[in-house]
């Protein structure tokens, strides 16, 4: 009986006040203690908003499926064609390839190689910037720096491309010469060094700058979310700032940073204009970074450069390479999720295992976990210092021996 009146009063409240849900739950459900679900009457605005959000969610699936379907349908004629005997495919940009796979293979390699260079250069710098902003910089500077990094993301890629051509290409020439002269025996730096600077190294450097903002902004947010308690606990246990970051910030943010890096990789994989403008491409598999004629072309740049002149079937071949880029990007994103998930799971497992060693009690547990970590850390330090001292004594002995022989 009382319930009924409660619902009724809730209904009344709903009808009289226009601000639905909040007022519906408070006055009516409080006396019943939440034992039974009270359902708010759905209003047109609710239904419209629900429809809109579901529609948006469905549309992303439809769009993605549509793109995939378009790529597959368009690409199939070129994939199944016999390239050497086909009048369209044995000339122009697709001339001289046995089949679709021998055409797209070097392009895939080039795409991955250019992105790898970008990642090797860009990711450590990006994480460093993120750490500086989140933990080292004074508050005001951190804000300004974060803003600047975000601004970098707003620079159009064509501008980066032009900057690469005019500034980075000549800038890297002395470095290229130096690397080629002294480290030329490493395949990466071998070959005839470029005189114009249109190398995949220049492309990679520009790509690295382009992926900085993505990796930096995500990593920064994750580093900032490190529980204050962890950090303070580490510091309280005598950790230096770097040790605190190593003990508290990195383990907490690891999966997030990996995801950020892979998102950056996704950006690098699909980058077109900068690469198309800067590097002097050839469709071949090469690891050389400093040459003029042995830079592996990337898929996106190859499409951009050859699409205008391509005939119908050549266009379909280019779309086929686009399909593979789509697949690679999808794979990278899925890998990012798997790694992030696994890292999270393993961190949880470790934490649980440590918790099992402790008496079950409340807030202190968290601190205690760090305590355990700190103890381990300390133990490792002791081991290390012991090793060092052993080495030292050994070297002393060596020296004495040498002295002996000298004498």
């Amino acid at each position, binding site marked *: 009986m009382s319930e009924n009146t409660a619902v009724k009063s809730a209904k009344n409240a709903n009808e009289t006040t226009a601000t639905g849900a909040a007022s519906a739950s408070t006055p009516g459900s409080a006396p019943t203690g939440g034992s039974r679900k009270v359902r708010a009457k759905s209003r047109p605005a609710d239904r419209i908003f629900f429809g809109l959000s579901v529609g948006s969610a469905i549309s992303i699936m439809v769009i993605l499926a549509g793109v995939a379907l378009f790529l597959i349908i368009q690409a199939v004629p070129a994939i199944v064609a016999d390239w050497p005997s086909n*009048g369209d495919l044995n000339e122009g940009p697709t001339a001289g390839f046995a089949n679709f796979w021998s055409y797209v293979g070097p392009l895939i390699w080039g795409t991955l190689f250019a992105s790898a260079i970008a990642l090797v250069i860009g990711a450590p710098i990006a994480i460093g910037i993120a750490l500086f902003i989140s933990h080292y910089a004074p508050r005001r500077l951190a804000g300004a720096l974060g803003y600047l990094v975000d601004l970098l993301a707003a620079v159009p890629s064509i501008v980066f491309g032009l900057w690469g051509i005019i500034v980075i290409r000549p800038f890297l020439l002395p470095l290229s010469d130096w690397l080629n002269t002294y480290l030329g025996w490493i395949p990466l730096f071998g070959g005839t060094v470029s005189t114009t600077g249109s190398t995949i190294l220049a492309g990679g450097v520009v790509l690295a700058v382009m992926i900085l903002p993505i990796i930096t902004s995500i990593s920064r947010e994750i580093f900032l979310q490190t529980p204050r308690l962890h950090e303070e606990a580490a510091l309280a246990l005598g950790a230096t700032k770097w040790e605190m970051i190593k003990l508290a910030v990195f383990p907490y943010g690891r999966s997030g940073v990996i995801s950020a890096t892979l998102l950056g990789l996704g950006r690098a994989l699909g980058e077109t204009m900068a690469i198309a403008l800067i590097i002097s491409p050839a469709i071949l598999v090469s690891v050389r970074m400093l040459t003029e004629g042995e830079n592996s072309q990337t898929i996106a740049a190859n499409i951009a*450069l050859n699409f205008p002149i391509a005939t119908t079937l050549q266009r379909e071949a280019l779309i086929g390479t686009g399909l593979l880029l789509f697949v690679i990007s999808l794979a990278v994103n899925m890998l990012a999720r798997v790694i992030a998930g696994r890292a999270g799971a393993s961190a949880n497992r470790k934490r649980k295992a440590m918790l099992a060693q402790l008496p079950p009690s409340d807030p202190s547990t968290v601190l205690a976990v760090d305590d355990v970590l700190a103890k381990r850390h300390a133990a490792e330090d002791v081991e290390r210092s012991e090793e060092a001292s052993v080495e030292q004594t050994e070297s002393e002995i060596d020296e004495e021996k040498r002295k002996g022989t000298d004498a």
Partner: protein
Amino acid sequence: MKLKNVAAVGTLALATALALSACSGSSTGGTTTDAATPSAAAPSIDFASLSGTITAGGSSAQANAEAAWITAFTAQAKGVTINYDKSQGSGGGVTNWLAGSYDFAGSDSPLKDDQQASSQAICGAGGALNLPVYLDGVAVIYNLPGVTDLNLSSATIAKIFSLQITTWNDPAIAAENPDATLPATAITTVTRSDGSGTTTNFTNYLSQTQPTIWTNAPGNAWPIAGSSAQQGGSGVVNTVKAGEGTIGYADHSAIGDLTSANIQVGTGSDYVPFSAEGASNAFTAAATTKDTGVKGDLAQSVDYTKITEADAYPIPLISYQILCTTFADEAQGELTKAFVSYVASDQGQQIAAKNAGSAPIPADMLAEIQTSLELVK
């Protein structure tokens, strides 16, 4: 209001342009209707009666010329709008035109046999016309400090671009340039990384004149790895300019202040720099109309080995406007015909020469184009 001002300025500019090119004589800039003469000198176009929109696109080589033609044409035919999309390139232009979205396509090479056959789907049994309306030359540009005058034979060019000659003081280059002090700098060849009609023309020239040295099939994509491949004609020009010991090829109208080499004509001892007359003479000497089985089609086949006189530039570049003989919409056909006819007039060619740096198509070819245009309906 603003638009009107722009149009007024445009008309004024045109009037000035016409006054400057007064040697063409037959037109009086102020009137809307040109005095009709039987030759190609000035087409009899009733500009005032024209209205509508022409949609076209394709070759970027003729883009500057198209822009100049469009400005001049629409300044007289007020009711006409013409859109030329150069971002498509020659291949894209032909593809879109075959799909029926363009009234005409700009292309650096004429339709291939299968394209000519499939054009009947949009053009009817009459087929399509390839009309050579744009003439330029491929310049061999280089950047070698201390060398301002360079003579190159087709054999040496073929060897340089196939990477058989790798330094500037190579005996082959020295023999052709006895007066120049050639340094031992390594040669960096600069080519196109994107597909291009310029590459088609240049590789055609190399494979026709030096088939034993240049063994690659001609095509719109550069076939040899090992060069510095750059995007677009401007990419090649900028890279040649920025490097040292660089050599590349580009449309002559796009090379800016770079020095271009004098090219040997035939096998003689004459080395010819680019000139508009040189390109026109080369067209007369080397281009013959192909028999494509389509009445009125003026697709040219160029035999570079026929360019042997010292008054001709050895590497001409021809670009086409391609349109149907029969338009689905007759009025649209008349409109497109009027524009192409204007382009292929003496006046149109002068405008392109002045604004885009191209060479005028020889008068007898212009007359042939006008005759072919009679077939368009």
